[in-house]
């Protein structure tokens, strides 16, 4: 289904935009939770300065205790430190992959909307991408490229680059469709026609008049895109084709934990909860943004 989100209102109504956003309880809670998770993941190592890679075989498979608040795994890694480190990987993948997908989607959408004779081929390409079986292709791509990229860029950067590119290149289509629709609607507006009449060059037109006015929908799909990217990454890691155990993301921690779930079930629960909470908060945030940016929806909800 195509999402109808209105363009960003003019400057003087920014205040009411905030108020509308603030009235959406779920969105505010979502924003707070997401900010808290980000802060915990970034500042956590200063509060809990345990090396997640430190092995302590004597203290393996422990239940939560004061020394290890979330317990330890089969090699005696501290799981709280691991969870914080894994969160940095997961969130970074989510943000960078979303940036790539939204950038690509915006580029394709704006090009298709502005250049008339590029519209049909670009949209056919988008349709083709939408009918590709993405999950199998992602798995295949990661399996086939993993070793050569790891050899080229080092074990951590290589797999990071591969996963971010794979997710980014396969999730730009929705953004492209939304952006194209917005640009097409915008093209009929008087101020664009006036700008054309004044002789504005195409690039300046896109930068000064089109992009600022479609910022709202782009922002919404960027927010929802973060959740999608984190979910995809953790699914890949769970299938054993994402991050390896030495650079664990939340998905990989969950995957590694499943073998020990009869012994220490909390090993599975914490990373899973972390993924769920992050995605849930981002989705609520995106929902609230969409409602705040689209005055029609708010009126519909108040009826």
């Amino acid at each position: 289904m195509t999402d109808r989100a209105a363009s960003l209102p003019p400057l003087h109504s920014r205040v009411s935009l905030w108020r509308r956003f603030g009235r959406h309880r779920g969105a505010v809670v979502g924003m707070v939770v997401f900010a808290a998770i980000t802060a915990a993941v970034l500042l956590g190592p200063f509060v809990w300065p345990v090396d997640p890679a430190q092995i302590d075989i004597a203290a393996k498979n422990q239940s939560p205790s004061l020394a290890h608040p979330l317990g330890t795994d089969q090699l005696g890694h501290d799981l709280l430190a691991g969870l914080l480190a894994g969160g940095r990987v997961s969130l970074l993948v989510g943000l960078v992959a979303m940036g790539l997908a939204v950038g690509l989607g915006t580029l394709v959408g704006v090009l298709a909307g502005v250049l008339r004779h590029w519209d049909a081929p670009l949209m056919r390409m988008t349709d083709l991408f939408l009918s590709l079986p993405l999950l199998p292709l992602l798995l295949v791509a990661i399996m086939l490229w993993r070793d050569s990229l790891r050899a080229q860029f080092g074990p951590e950067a290589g797999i990071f680059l591969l996963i971010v590119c794979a997710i980014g290149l396969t999730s730009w289509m929705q953004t492209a469709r939304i952006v194209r629709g917005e640009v097409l609607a915008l093209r009929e507006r008087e101020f664009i026609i006036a700008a054309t009449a004044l002789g504005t060059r195409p690039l300046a037109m896109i930068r000064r008049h089109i992009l600022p006015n479609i910022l709202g929908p782009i922002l919404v799909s960027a927010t929802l895109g973060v959740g999608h990217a984190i979910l995809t990454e953790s699914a890949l890691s769970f299938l054993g084709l994402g991050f390896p155990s030495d650079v664990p993301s939340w998905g990989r921690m969950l995957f590694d934990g499943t073998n020990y779930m009869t012994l220490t079930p909390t090993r599975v629960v914490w990373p899973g909860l972390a993924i769920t909470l992050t995605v849930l908060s981002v989705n609520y945030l995106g929902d609230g943004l969409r409602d705040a940016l689209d005055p029609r929806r708010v009126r519909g909800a108040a009826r």
Partner: protein
Amino acid sequence: MFTYTLRRLAFSIPVLLAISLVIFLLIDLAPNDPTANLPLTIPPEIREQLRTGLGLDAPTHVRYLLWCKQFFIHEPLNLLDGMMGNESSRLRLQSWSTHTPVMELIAERLPQTLWVVGLSLVIGILIALPLGILSARHQHGWVDQFGTFVAMLGFSVPSFFLGVLMIIVFSVKLGWFPSIYDTTHRVTDWHSLGVQLRQMVMPVTVLALFNAAQFSRFLRASMLETLHQDFIRTARAKGMSEARVLLRHALRNAIGPVVTVISLAIPQVFAGAIITEQVFRVNGLGQLLISGIQSGDVPLVQTLTFLFAVLIVLFNLMADITYGLLDPRIRYD
């Protein structure tokens, strides 16, 4: 309508060919050596012969056309021969790791996946129907709030986490259901049927929950739109019972877009089954794909991926056609 269907069917052939080419090139251009997993003691010239034996020395376009010939011409003809009871000797798509025809591997795994996916669709729809109708009838009521929350959970909880959680609670702690799906189990009497149902409960529930979340939201939106229309007010003014208004008048008008959404969602359910099968160790198509990927079995992976693409194109087509059939106001010609 009929000519429209024919036109769409004809148009999907070049689309599928384009997709098959994209998939083939993606897999083919990647740096991958099928002999890399073999023991290191095999000398390089034998390795070269092995690669030649797999047909890897031919140029890319020749291998692509060969794959097309085997998939589009040989396999259907073999199927026909098989049905007539004839023995056929055409060259078939061979798996590199098991050296058996790919199609036989797929036919072996298909029933498990179809059962799980099919049941989860049916149960998802059965949950979504009352939830969507009641959410729309009492908008902002507690059913609606509950439905919104469940849908949000459905979109945000990863299926593998939900699956693993269910295993911890229901298999490890309570011991109600087996955590591993036994595909060699044969249903012969009531008792074995019970065992079969019990092992299907968890995989089906996980998938069904996601289906229900998605379908109920669309049904709610569609019902809301219908319930605000004049003919509903007329129906109520005539003194019809609420159930009749909802089911006869509103639902029939609202169900069209929802059927489209369900049809578009079916390929996604198959993709979701890849993950769910991995969680519950169901040896269906998803597990075949994963094991094929891990052993570098290119023909198997290529064929399976393409079959997933066929599913997507087919159900997109079906969505358009059923939309036209269910709503006579839609005219394609």
